[in-house]
């Protein structure tokens, strides 16, 4: 096979940063192959992508050494618009890429730059909208699309340019599980054509179908190989900030033979080797989760956006107890965020009541509420403004009028809890995304609210940072804070939340202990969600435990009690 992209000792460091973003990258990607580039955040994945079409070093400047050749063209020597004839790239922030009035014109933009006549454009647009499954939405305003649809449009608009190389930088981040599945299946379909695909992702489950995986670590190519070679090495990928595959993790923990990459393979292995005899899961009745005092309560709460015609929330009855750890799950637009914004009074119900500690939210003063219920927004950059971490974190306590002694104590405590002690005088804008996220949490924490709501706290973070963030929330929960997490990352709900609330179209579909909610795959599918591979395997085996260690214990226990399952 001929190579399509050749990296020859590529090194790059951004202006004014001492640490190189890429170091000595050597390797080839064959024409028509699908390469998955993985690594922790800051490992250099995006830089690598941008080096393929020359954004590095033409647009993002710095010290550049080595060479990248794409289909015979040297990136960096040619301008980015010239490279665009060969390389199509879907950048990480897909929201910012869409700027046309409607879907059709968005698709047309690249083609206009290629000077295509109108009839040819029409043909390409209808072809590629069908490929990405948006043919019905030709005239839709791009702002009204769901996250998954936006991402597919971003991909479609680049596909339409029919470049021999297609690069996608984290195309599945920031979208709901259903949108994610759509995009992963789209990538698999794209791969069958004469096209070189380069995709980056943080999730190992996305890499199973790649031809080869490049593992980046601190700007260096740590490993390169087939999915079977790379993904089965749990300690290697975990050291690169990637969550190991659930199936592999379970098989290794159990010392079972075989290295299944998918749930289906795992089930086959278990059956073939008679490792365990699956039994039907007992359907647990969903019990009330009464424990502690009620802190948040909604009574028949409905909400309609001023511009909207339908209820964004429709008759929500919900009680949340002090000290609970709740995950709110659902597709984009299912009403999770809208509901959570009622908890701290950012939105006022159109009908029904929102009570905090039994008192209606409208009877609270703004600062009283801010010290009861804290809300960490999805994007930390929407709130960071101060020149130092200390001042940033001090903002809440200061505007709430705490005296300087309490203020200092609270700030120190908040920084300690978020692992930011020692960062006091650092500039928050120069921290990495995971650290900025922690600053945002600390700035809420310093007010000491009883309830902390976090909207997508792990978006854009790699596994190591995700785990750090969640472990921090777990500690805060143990200290008595009620934690409510809105998330698309299923494993987070599975591993950390005691209670899961499933939302769909402004209503609560299912609400109960996480272990029970995640047993009900039919209900999850109805909410356009799917559990992680580990939990799917757990459900197939009919286990009760929901964490890896719990499952291993349960499986071992079973093994001793019913030895026939393995010896027959």
């Amino acid at each position, binding site marked *: 096979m001929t190579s399509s992209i050749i990296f020859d000792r590529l090194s790059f460091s951004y202006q004014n940063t001492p640490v190189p973003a890429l170091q000595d990258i050597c390797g080839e990607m064959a024409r028509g192959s699908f390469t998955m580039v993985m690594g922790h955040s800051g490992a250099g994945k995006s830089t690598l992508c941008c080096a393929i079409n020359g954004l590095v070093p033409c647009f993002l400047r710095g010290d550049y050494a080595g060479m990248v050749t794409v289909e015979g063209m040297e990136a960096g020597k040619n301008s980015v618009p010239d490279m665009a004839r060969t390389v199509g790239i879907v950048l990480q922030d897909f929201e910012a*890429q869409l700027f046309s009035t409607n879907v059709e014109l968005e698709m*047309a933009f690249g083609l206009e730059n290629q000077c295509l006549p109108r009839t040819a454009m029409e043909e390409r647009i209808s072809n590629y909208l069908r490929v990405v499954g948006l043919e019905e939405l030709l005239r839709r305003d791009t*702002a009204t699309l769901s996250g998954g649809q936006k991402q597919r449009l971003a991909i479609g608009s680049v596909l339409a340019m029919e470049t021999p190389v297609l690069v996608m930088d984290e195309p599945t981040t920031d979208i709901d599980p259903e949108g994610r599945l759509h995009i992963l299946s789209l990538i698999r379909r794209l791969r069958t054509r004469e096209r070189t695909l380069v995709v980056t992702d943080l999730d190992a489950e996305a890499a199973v179908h790649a031809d080869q995986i490049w593992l980046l670590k601190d700007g260096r190519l740590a490993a390169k190989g087939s999915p079977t070679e790379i993904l089965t090495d749990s300690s290697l990928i975990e050291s690169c900030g990637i969550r190991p595959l659930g199936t592999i993790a379970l098989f290794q923990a159990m010392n079972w033979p075989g290295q299944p990459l998918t749930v289906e393979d795992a089930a086959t292995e278990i059956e073939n080797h008679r490792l365990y005899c699956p039994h039907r899961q007992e359907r647990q009745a969903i019990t009330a989760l009464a424990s502690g005092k009620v802190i948040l309560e909604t009574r028949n709460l409905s909400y309609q956006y001023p511009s909207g015609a339908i209820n964004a929330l429709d008759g929500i009855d919900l009680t949340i107890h002090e000290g609970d750890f709740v995950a709110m799950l659902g597709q984009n637009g299912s009403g999770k965020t809208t509901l959570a914004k009622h908890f701290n009074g*950012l939105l006022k119900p159109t009908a029904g009541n929102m009570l905090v500690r039994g008192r209606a939210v409208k009877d609270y003063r703004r600062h009283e509420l801010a010290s009861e219920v804290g809300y960490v927004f999805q994007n930390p*950059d929407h709130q960071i403004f101060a020149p130092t971490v200390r001042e940033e974190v001090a903002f809440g306590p200061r505007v709430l009028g705490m005296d300087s002694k309490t203020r200092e104590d609270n700030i120190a405590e908040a920084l300690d809890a978020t692992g930011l002690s020692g960062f006091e005088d650092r500039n928050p*804008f120069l921290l990495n995304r995971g650290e900025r996220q922690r600053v945002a949490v600390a700035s809420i924490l310093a007010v000491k609210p009883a309830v902390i709501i976090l909207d997508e706290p792990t978006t854009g973070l790699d596994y190591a940072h995700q785990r750090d963030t969640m472990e921090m929330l777990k500690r805060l929960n143990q200290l008595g804070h009620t934690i409510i997490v809105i998330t698309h990352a299923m494993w987070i709900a599975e591993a950390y939340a005691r209670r899961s609330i499933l939302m769909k179209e402004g209503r609560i579909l299912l609400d109960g202990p996480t272990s029970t909610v995640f047993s009900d795959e039919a209900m999850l599918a109805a909410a356009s969600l799917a559990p992680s591979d580990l939990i799917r395997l757990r459900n197939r085996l009919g286990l009760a435990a929901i964490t890896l260690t719990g499952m291993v214990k349960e499986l071992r226990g079973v093994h001793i009690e019913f030895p026939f399952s393995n010896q027959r």
Partner: protein
Amino acid sequence: MIMNLTLYNDKSTWLHQLDPRTKIGGVLLIFVICLCFNHPLFIALILTGVLAIFTTAKSIKVLWKLRFLLVLLFAFSVVLWPFFIKGKTILFQWHGLEVSRESLLYGLAMGLRLMTFVSAGLLLLATTKNEEITNGLIRLGIPYPVAFALATAIRLAPTFADAGATIVQAQVSRGLDLDSKNVFSRFKRFAPLSIPIFISAMRYTNFLAMALESKGFQPDAPRTSYYEPQITGRDWLVLGFLTLTLAVCLYLRLSLHWGIIISGRL
């Protein structure tokens, strides 16, 4: 966030189908027609005309979205103008400040004129896609980079407003008091809002530039256009009608001296 701040109203009325050049020219003509008179009654008539066009374009809700802005402009003008204009019929005097019947009417006229200007501009934005405006400007001889920058600015305003709304919510959640009466605390709350808005705008535009270049966009290179507007008979009819109206208005003002409250002023 379900907050739609885009002004374009996707319908298919006669106005939407006009060539963007016609609409840009038409709006300019309406501007000049407005300048013909300074009598509130005459300007009110022109405003009624613009509102009638809004109704036929099924876009009155765009105006409704910006009602606060319109009312604000009107109120400011009505309140402030009378103090700066001298008239014959003095209504009251106070420490050298005087308000006359003429100046009051003039203020009213200016308020209405401002509303007409804004409404006419909104008429263009409500019925013309961003790409059409770019296209129209280019065909009118404006250089591509300028046209593109202008259209992008129009496009980005709602995006930044949206980011702004999120930022306000994020800071209010941290206890930022936006209802405070104190002038100094108002100053203080400027930083928590403006810095994140500024930074997110910078990030966004930088990113957008990368995306544009990656799709082969070069401001000075030739490119085709997916949307190719055609000037039809209807366009000439609209332009002809507006030009005729302007001619009539000029005649009324200059020869018959109609529609004047204070002469010698626009």
